[in-house]
């Protein structure tokens, strides 16, 4: 028998995690992407590489380091806790690190495509640096922001390895959909697994479809 309460709690937790993670990533990722797009220094190249690492590293490796970092001698100790792991904040931190390249990279590319000229024009029209960032750079890079937001959200929804390493499987606390599926299969609850897996499949399809439609519509009005 399908336990809808169980699935529902995993679903809301997943959406909550993906929303919080995406918001944090937009706040942190935007200035980071701006800096990476405009700086040519060795430091920025190295930071750019670090940001891209989660793309190629096994999630378990990342999860392992995060487990250490969130532990008593790391961030957990800082907050006077035994560990931040196996908690929702810990999950958010892990997701932020893991999904970072998916948000930063599209925004960075979009900032690079904007180029210097529109910002110079804005400067000659008396816009201060902050003013021209918000009124020229961000609007012109909006396709990158949309792509980054959708990718960051979807990727967080779909993450498994990192969550398993640092989140465990605490219902209502750290048990997200991808973990739930793993759980159901282990317990031979195939009906539940079908429901969640099917839902994820449809969700993923819609995300990619929406992205290509958005990309085309914004592409039309770009110069």
């Amino acid at each position, binding site marked *: 028998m399908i336990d809808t309460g169980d699935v529902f709690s995993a679903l809301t937790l997943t959406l909550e995690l993906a929303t919080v993670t995406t918001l944090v990533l937009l706040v942190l990722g935007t200035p980071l992407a701006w800096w990476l797009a405009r700086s040519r220094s060795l430091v920025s190249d190295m930071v750019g590489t670090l940001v891209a690492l989660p793309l190629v590293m096994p999630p378990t490796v990342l999860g392992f380091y995060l487990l250490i970092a969130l532990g008593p001698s790391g961030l957990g100790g800082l907050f006077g806790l035994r560990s931040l792991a196996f908690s929702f904040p810990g999950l958010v931190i892990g997701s932020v690190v893991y999904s970072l390249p998916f948000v930063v990279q599209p925004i960075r590319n979009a900032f690079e495509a904007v180029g210097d000229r529109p910002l110079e024009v*804005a*400067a000659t029209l*008396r816009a201060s640096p902050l003013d021209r960032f918000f009124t020229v750079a961000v609007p012109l890079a909006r396709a990158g922001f949309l792509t980054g937001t959708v990718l960051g959200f979807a990727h967080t929804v779909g993450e498994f390895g990192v969550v398993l390493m640092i989140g465990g499987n605490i219902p209502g606390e750290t048990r997200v959909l991808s973990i739930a599926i793993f759980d159901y299969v282990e317990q031979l609850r195939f009906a539940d697994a079908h429901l969640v897996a099917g839902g994820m499949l449809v969700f993923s399809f819609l995300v990619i479809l929406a992205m290509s439609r958005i990309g085309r519509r914004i592409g039309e009005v770009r110069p």
Partner: protein
Amino acid sequence: MTAESVSSGAAPGGLDVALAGRRGDFAIDAAFTAPARGVTALFGPSGSGKTSILRAIAGLTRLDGRVRVAGETWQEGARFLPPHRRALGYVFQEASLFSHLSVDGNLAYGARRSPGGVDAAMRREVIDLLSLDRLMSRAVADLSGGERQRVAIGRAILSRPRLLLMDEPLSGLDHRAKDEILPFIERLAAGLDLPILYVSHDLAEIERLADRIVVVADGKVRASGPLNAALTDLGLGFVRDPRAAAVLPARVVAFSQEDGLAELDLGGQRVFVDGSGPEEIGLERRLRIVASDVSLARAPLASSTILNILGVEILAIEPGGRADLAILLALDGAPDLTFMAKVTRRSAARLSLAPGDRLHAQIKSVSLATSAMPRSR
């Protein structure tokens, strides 16, 4: 146009620039002034540093030195105002409108940020001046090159600058678009109470628009002063260009309905050109006299098809080519109004021409510099 001293300081309200520094492996050392009104052309071949100088005046790139505009110091010593603190308008080579904003939004961008703002009357005036009315509701992407540039100019003016910088605003346009937009820039130059610095490597544009010229070569200022004084300075070498011409101010005094000719007063003498109508009477026009269209005679020819014959005095004679001499002439009674003639060495020897001689200059064609623009090379 008066033969004022080239080294005179900037008039109050004008522009005073002295910049030096390196851009890559290129040394710039340029000092010049521009009066509070009118168009000063920054002329030179591509790669001579004109754009670098313009960008440094705007503060977009940094050179050492001094920039003063209308009594305000934008840069001197340790003082360096960033571009957004300089009251300037900048029209770039390509229109660079904000593609995320409408035409209206582009115009409003600078207007909203100008101190004191822009009232409806001023907005109306700029929209009318540049005929932007029909464009207001259009998307930026749907505008032609000339239309974009007009919007960019309007946007710059609506930010209420005290200096307008234009970096080859027509270079990306075809001839038709150039001809369409030039009258707008002419009206602008006549109507705006601020200095306009206009970068171009196209002499035809400069002959139409500029009052003064700063000649730039290899990052240095070779000459600066009133336009015609530079064009007819035989030492500067403009005369070696096959289309070398003088540009002189004349006033329309009459128009003949019978044959369509306008009669102009040029330093007290009469000149006839293809006119457009009686409504021109009283207006100041620029006459363009091409050096190779001017021939000289000791006595006026009684029967000739040449209409325009002016009394002149030879000021100087210089070699102009293998077989040619370049002769600098001044109008009788108006020594400031100078133009050039190209004659063969043989003719000059036959007439034994010498400085101080008074002659008759026969001009095969005189055109208005403001009529259909000569094609650039």
